């Protein structure tokens, strides 16, 4: 068949020729320009997961607390006592790469819409960020812009940004990662779904106006970044948090009336996506008149209306006859609200423009049976991984109890680690975020392994329950071993929740990967997904949804794509039944005893922060995750917190035991004297990494009860390392030699300057 569009036009919509042939088959005719644009965005990875869908199917999604799983705007879990929590993560990597401030800001706006669309009031935000090397000026500009953008939207909209993580590595140069997770507490009796219902019901367009901003953002997000990407800046939307705030209030008020049948935010692919998904999920059609849409520009073509990603817009299906009441609510908040369409029986999306049908596509053709690519998985791990696995610690220069040779005592190495941007305090960042608005932030950023937010409804007296949330992902480990690295991310997320005393419940994940079209890229994606699936099953934390961001690659000047570290980010939420029984990470009292839980857990320098930042080596293999030990250690930690024995708890993560001890000192403004033992090299004992280990401190008055409890539940897997007190961190080996002795002041200073050396 003769193509109505030339190859370049088809490619410009990021469609392959095969996909174009499939469009012709489904329509039985050539699409017009508007329709081609609709297929281009709806068949992008961002919207239809054509590369990742076969892999996502293996995630466990069911559980007694899961009320809404994948497929809706956000997942919803049951927290008991009538509390229902909506939560979801989303990425805005590509927009942030070309326009960091607005890219990050609209990432926040987008994920918030996913939450309140369900009828939930947003109560917390977290973010997971990755940037290149801070020595590079462009990285500093990107990092400062992204943080300012997140602050701009989150602060103004009045949702506290309570936690997150950030890492710097040259592998993210030019392709930063900006993942934002939002939590919301359901306010409506019924969870608002997105399936359109009721033939003849009016379809309301509400919120902001439509302009040419954000044109084709979804397909832009599904391609590699190149030198030309800056020219795609129109694909980045511009956020208006003030309108976002009004939209939250107006939507929640509208949902409370019970007159709203269905709602969907206009995020990726704007009107195209919202009309077709609402129609498809409801098994009906939608007729939508572009002439009714309030526009902020003149002369827009149907295609521009359809693909605009102007922010702060929603589509509502409202009970017939109630449109005036709903419109009145939005108008009171100073927002647009117009009846722009209706639900029709034919399962098509029919777009009207200037009295003509500008596009008519069966919803099934657009939304269902979208292209899926089953790719061949490498039978053997790729060469880079195999050679990395061949590395062993013996390849490093020799070391002793004194250090890495006479010039580099371990105290100095510890300070170097703490002073690196990856382990240094992130205060420069979280101080720019309003983390206390809404008056429910129980654990402040920086003081604990996870954020804890009180669940409270105005007018309802306490005591209240709380929710804990964390984001975790270590791209370096996933690069070295996607299966173990992804498992480690899930295990660490659960461990972080357990360290504050929360019971891990459910996961939202953001898969940030390179191109799945290369054998290595697909191997990383597929293997990591298998790791997430098995880990979530083992820990009993189902996946309720998430986001996939592929093609995170920059085209170098030589035209060769350079992929980021494969970086799945795990967002996990947990339940806190008693907000009086929580733990931070810092020592609390002089004289308390320090215990390490999980002493038998395997550790390795492979992929460690120590190996990367002290030896500038990317090699090794992270240890396999032992879920039986992981569960036992975490359960014991939570049990000790619930009993009131454990005063502080901190996960041993990047930087190993040495850094975890130092962080507990810095955070608690108290020193400690400890004795550690271990087989193998001292750097491995001090800075080796692996899951399953938690550092706790306990008052001597609870020593008997706590140790009896540990002996019963964690036999052979715990040890008392020493005690809290003094103004130094002193670590002895079992034979009495001093491994580390450094003043609290020096530790704190190194840790405080790690980021502010670069960012002012």
């Amino acid at each position: 068949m003769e193509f109505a569009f030339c190859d370049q036009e088809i490619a410009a919509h990021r469609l392959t020729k095969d996909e174009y042939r499939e469009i012709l088959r489904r329509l039985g005719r050539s699409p017009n320009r508007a329709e081609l644009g609709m297929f281009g965005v709806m068949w992008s990875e961002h919207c239809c997961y054509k590369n990742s869908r076969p892999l996502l199917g293996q995630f466990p999604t069911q559980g007694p607390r899961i009320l809404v799983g994948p497929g809706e705007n956000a997942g919803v879990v049951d927290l008991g006592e009538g509390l229902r929590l909506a939560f979801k993560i989303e990425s805005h990597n590509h927009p942030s790469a070309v326009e960091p401030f607005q890219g990050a800001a609209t990432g926040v706006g987008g994920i918030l819409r996913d939450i309140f669309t369900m009828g939930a009031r947003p109560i917390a935000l977290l973010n997971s960020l990755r940037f290149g090397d801070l020595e590079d000026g462009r990285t500093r500009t990107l990092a400062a812009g992204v943080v300012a953008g997140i602050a701009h939207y989150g602060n103004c909209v009045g949702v506290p940004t309570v936690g997150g993580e950030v890492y710097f590595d040259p592998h993210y140069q030019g392709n930063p990662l900006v993942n934002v997770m939002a939590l919301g507490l359901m306010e409506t009796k019924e969870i608002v779904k997105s399936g359109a219902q009721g033939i003849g019901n009016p379809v309301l367009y509400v919120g902001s106006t439509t302009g040419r901003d954000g044109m084709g953002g979804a397909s832009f997000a599904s391609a590699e970044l190149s030198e030309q990407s800056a020219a795609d800046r129109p694909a980045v939307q511009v956020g208006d948090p003030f309108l976002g705030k009004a939209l939250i209030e107006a939507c929640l008020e509208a949902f409370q009336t019970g007159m709203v049948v269905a709602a969907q935010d206009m995020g990726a692919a704007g009107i195209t996506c919202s009309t077709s998904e609402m129609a498809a999920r409801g098994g009906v059609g939608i007729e939508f008149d572009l002439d009714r849409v309030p526009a902020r520009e003149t002369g827009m073509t149907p295609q521009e209306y359809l693909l605009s990603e102007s922010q702060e817009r929603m589509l509502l299906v409202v009970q017939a006859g109630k449109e005036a009441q709903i419109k009145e609510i939005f108008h009171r908040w100073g927002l647009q609200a117009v009846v722009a369409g209706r639900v029709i029986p034919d399962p098509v999306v029919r777009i009207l423009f200037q009295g003509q049908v500008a596009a008519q596509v069966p919803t099934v053709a657009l939304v269902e049976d979208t292209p899926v690519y089953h790719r061949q998985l490498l039978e053997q791990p790729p060469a880079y991984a195999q050679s990395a696995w061949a590395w062993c610690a013996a390849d490093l220069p020799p070391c002793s109890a004194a250090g890495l040779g006479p010039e580099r005592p371990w105290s100095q190495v510890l300070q170097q680690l703490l002073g690196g941007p990856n382990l240094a305090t992130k205060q420069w960042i979280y101080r720019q975020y309003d983390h206390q608005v809404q008056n429910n932030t129980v654990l402040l950023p920086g003081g604990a392994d996870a954020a804890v937010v009180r669940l409270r409804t105005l007018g309802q007296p306490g005591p209240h329950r709380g929710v804990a949330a964390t984001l975790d992902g270590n791209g370096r480990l996933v690069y070295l071993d996607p299966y173990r690295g992804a498992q480690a991310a899930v295990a660490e997320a659960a461990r972080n929740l357990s360290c504050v005393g929360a019971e891990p419940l459910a996961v939202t994940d953001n898969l940030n990967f390179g191109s799945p079209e290369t054998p290595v890229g697909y191997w990383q994606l597929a293997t990591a997904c298998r790791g997430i699936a098995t880990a979530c099953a083992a820990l009993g934390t189902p996946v309720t949804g998430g986001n996939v961001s592929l093609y995170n690659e920059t085209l170098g000047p030589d035209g060769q794509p350079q992929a980021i570290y494969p970086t799945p980010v795990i967002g996990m939420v947990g339940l806190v039944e008693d907000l009086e029984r929580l733990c931070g990470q810092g020592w609390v009292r002089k004289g308390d005893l320090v215990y390490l839980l999980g002493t038998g857990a395997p550790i390795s320098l492979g992929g460690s922060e120590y190996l990367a930042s002290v030896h500038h080596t990317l090699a090794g293999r992270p240890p396999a995750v032992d879920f039986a030990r992981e569960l036992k250690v975490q359960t014991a930690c939570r049990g000790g917190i619930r009993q009131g024995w454990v005063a502080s708890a901190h996960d041993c993560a990047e930087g190993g035991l040495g850094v975890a001890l130092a962080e507990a000192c810095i955070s608690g403004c108290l020193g400690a004297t400890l004795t550690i033992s271990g087989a193998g090299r001292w750097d491995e004992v001090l800075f080796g990494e692996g899951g399953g280990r938690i550092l706790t401190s306990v008052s001597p008055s609870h020593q008997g009860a706590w140790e009896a409890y540990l002996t019963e539940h964690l036999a052979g897997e715990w040890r008392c390392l020493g005690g809290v007190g003094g103004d130094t961190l002193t670590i002895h080996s079992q034979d009495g030699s001093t491994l580390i002795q450094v003043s609290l002041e020096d530790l704190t200073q190194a840790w405080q300057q790690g980021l502010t050396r670069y960012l002012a």
Partner: protein
Amino acid sequence: MKFGVVVFPGSNCDRDVAYVVQDLLGQQLHWIWHTEQDLGGVDVVVIPGGFSYGDYLRCGALARLSPVMEAVCAFARGGGMVLGICNGFQVLTEAGLLPGALIRNQKLHFTCDRVHLRVERQDLPWVQDYRVGEVITLPIAHGEGCYYADPTTLRQLEDQGQVLLRYCSASGALNENPNGSLNGIAGLCNAAGNVLGMMPHPERAADPLTGGTAGRRLFAGLLAASP
């Protein structure tokens, strides 16, 4: 006591104030929508934190022109108690109920933190639950909280003892200042003492679970003063 809380579309600490006065202190709460001119017979008006109308132009510049502010100004001129917190402080200066202006923080960043404040007076309802010279800790969260006034105004404020709260160190020394405010001014009242504007958030420090109780004492002082 009946507290009126003004709600602009961009207010975002309105519910936090409501939580304190209604849920924690058991007082009457009355929402006042920004288009209203009837304050509903309240004893105290609170203008909460947030971003009134987006504040893209200048914080509080549009809010000053709102119908509700006309009523609030009349209420204040009649001696009514008016408390502006954060954005509310900005609105009060724009509306001319308090002198000076709040400009961009010296280091340009939005800053969310807990800061030490020295209480400068205790002979007004707002501060009667504190002692003069006492150092308290309250949360701040603002991008434009650097207090500025011309030298004459500043001298006048000091002469009349209108500064109620000043940024300070843990020991009360005036050498710590999170935003560059002149004279370390964090909280300021009018000459009559019935209008108070402050950048720190007392409502975020009214509950031991989430931020201490230093701010609750400001509300407690008000209650003790009511007949």
